[in-house]
């Protein structure tokens, strides 16, 4: 038996945040009901460490089962629940209510630039199509080594940051260039190209740079840094894009 369940002290511990009520103003859309999207407010009781995802679950489980959103791991590693929270792209499972000013209604909308399917769910296919286009896999030539390929810790460090990507689309769907031009590869695809272009084991850099030199490629980036701010994994997205631009100039092909 767990000892945790016996604890029932009414006095909050030092540093503990007491329960509070919070209103979520959610963008609802269900094409089976109406072609129009609407705002709907829900007020729920929340605990100190609750996240936006906990509040969404409370609404879905106790009030309105039709509220629709994606989620899986619930701790910021699977990338299912990127949404626009108070106008900023975040993961619902990584955003604590207390950190987004619960005194006022918190707005929750689907991420922008991808077709909305229902409520907070968007069609991810265009996003993954761009990802697949940059050839996101190790390209090598010659015979496979019998053991591992060697790589120095210094070489490994060059692309460490961009290996963190969880393909949640928070960056791409925060990019004003992507909003106006859905053909633009977008930050996430470039981040994943960077992960291979700067991997010393890879021999496909030239091909990837050619793909990203396209008119819908890396030069469309206006360095507004929205992507870097949006990334829930703390990847320096804009810096990675700059490094890819620089590689294009320095690695003549």
């Amino acid at each position, binding site marked *: *038996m*767990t*000892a*945790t*369940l*016996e*604890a029932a*002290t009414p006095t909050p*511990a*030092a*540093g*503990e945040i007491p329960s509070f009520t919070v209103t979520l103003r959610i963008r609802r859309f*269900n*094409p*089976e*009901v109406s072609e129009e999207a609407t705002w709907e407010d829900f007020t729920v009781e929340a605990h100190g*460490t609750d996240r936006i995802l906990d509040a969404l679950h409370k609404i*879905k*489980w*106790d009030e*309105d*089962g*039709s509220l*629709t*959103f*994606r*989620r*899986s*791991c*619930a*701790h*910021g590693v*699977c990338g*299912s629940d990127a949404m626009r929270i108070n106008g900023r792209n975040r993961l619902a499972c*990584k955003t*604590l209510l207390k950190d987004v000013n619960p005194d006022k209604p918190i707005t929750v909308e689907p991420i922008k630039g991808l077709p909305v*399917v*229902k409520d907070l769910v968007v069609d*991810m296919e265009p996003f993954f199509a761009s990802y*697949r286009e940059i*050839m*996101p*896999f*190790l390209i090598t030539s010659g015979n*496979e080594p019998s053991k*591992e*390929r*060697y790589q*120095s*810790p210094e070489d*490994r460090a060059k*692309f*460490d940051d961009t*290996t*963190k990507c*969880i*393909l949640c689309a928070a960056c791409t769907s925060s990019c004003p260039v992507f909003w106006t031009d859905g053909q633009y590869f977008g930050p996430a695809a470039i981040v994943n190209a960077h992960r*291979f272009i700067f*991997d010393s*084991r890879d021999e496909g850099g030239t091909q990837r740079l050619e793909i990203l030199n396209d008119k819908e490629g890396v030069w469309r980036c206006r360095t507004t840094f929205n992507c870097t701010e949006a990334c829930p994994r703390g990847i320096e997205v804009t810096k990675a894009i700059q490094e890819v631009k620089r590689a294009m100039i320095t690695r003549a092909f």
Partner: protein
Amino acid sequence: MQTHQYDVVIVGAGGAGMRAALESSKEARTAVISKLYPTRSHTGAAQGGMAAALANVEDDNWEWHTFDTVKGGDYLVDQDAAEILAKEAIESVLDLERMGLPFNRTPEGKIDQRRFGGHTRDHGQSAVRRACYAADRTGHMILQTLYQNCVKQDVEFFNEFYVLDLITDHDLTTEEIADGEEVNATGVVAYDLATGEIHVFQAKAIIFATGGAGKIFKTTSNAHTLTGDGMALAYRRGLPLEDMEFFQFHPTGLAGLGILLSEAARGEGGILRNSEGERFMERYAPTIKDLAPRDIVARSMANEVREGRGAGPNKDYVLLDLTHLEPAHIDAKLPDITEFARTYLGIEPYTEPVPVYPTAHYAMGGVPTNIQGEVLRDGVNVVKGLYAAGEVACVSVHGSNRLGTNSLLDINVFGKRSGRAAAAYAKTAEFHDLPADPTVRVVEQLDEMRNRPDGERVADIRKALQDTMDLNAQVFRTGDSLNQALADIRELQKRYRNASVQDKGKLFNTDLLEAIELGFLLDIAEVTVVAAINRKESRGGHYREDFPHRDDANYMLHTMAYRRPTAASDQAEGHVEGYFDHVEEFDGYKVVLGSKPVVQTRYEPMERKY
């Protein structure tokens, strides 16, 4: 309704499913069906590493790894399978490196390795550096690398499709099937979440790689989507489940939340302390201390709390102390888990110890398979064309307690094996006819749930289930607590028959699918508890306070649980009078327990000391 035909259909796109797909799609027309988008699967949440005796940083070999796996599993491991796991580990890690996985490196550029619980040098002498890793996101890197290679190989995916039934050419739930008679798996029925449409997939070979069932518990490291789908589908179709009483509680979940903090934290030097600041693992496992296997550490932690040495205002957790480690070292080796502590508990691990408590983590049991990944329909006979790999399966390489880093290994070794075996079988096999109306069960089930007017809330039943499992079937169990859990589950099964959903629509109806998933959870919790009631001994992850010792004379056998009609025989294969003869009657069916011998090759069971 749409019908598809593939040589091989793989259910699940986590590590095991995609590793299988990379093999089978080279040889046979393959489809991967997943209820999530690719890269969302819970393999991506694995942190610490993947074991393989590469000996890149110190002396090591696969025989030591085999021994550790067998001893770690408290001798309920099938030793032939463990030997394969440890031997093929080396090639599996090298496969991943060649596919592009960015492992951490040694100064000379080789794959780096670190210590992990229960992995030792020379049969328990001291901890050994065997876990190959990529910071504390090894699972993320494996999932990404496997998906990248699926993109490269143009593997076909059906995303956000829920498989809701398995089709076989014999009804295993009612028919008496003669020993040696051929039973074939012929297809699966799936539900497309986006449209609500039903799809039938006819296949020569089917691989279940659907993962675990951690959501039967309240405090768990598992994703919301880990609802035991594959296990429950096989079980409902009359296939046995093996060793379901053995569930692993990972020692270091973030207190109150259950979010996983990798054992790598202790591998890198982290120490568990009680409220008195004592390094209490010195008392429980004097040789390897904090790096003892998970069952031992989890029990020790729960015991400290029970005896009043828990930390915090309610004295209900212990502390994971990293404060003596260099911040730069923490940043390099443990960046993600330290961020979890900051994000979710507001704790700075550089300077403050992190509150932790055991969290439900991994099902050692599952769908029984042989070493080729073929699913068994009893102790000996297979279902032709049906395979299982990863957490859904029980080979059994983990016995009664899995060692850390052996699950990322399991998905790679047995994912690859089952992918190869399925493709080879599909090359020689023909399609078998499907029944006239293969979707009837699924359509009825969905319609009934969708059309039932106001009833019980799914979330209420699920919460009650998770509460009773945490209270009565967790780290410490007794006959009384387990019987209480069973009584609660019976009641919840009744309430479930009256459950309803609010969303009656066709499109992206997650309300409906959560209700279906709850049905899986109830069945898995039920069989877990029945098996736990029967096993009156303590072994690995299953600890009975009323039977605190291991009883090899009577229980050195795998549990095999069958769900059968009420009128069927009370005896299952491996029936042992007084030990594996338990029958539990339910409304309209019963659970009958039998057994299967443990394969022992090199290692005689010994007392487990660390």
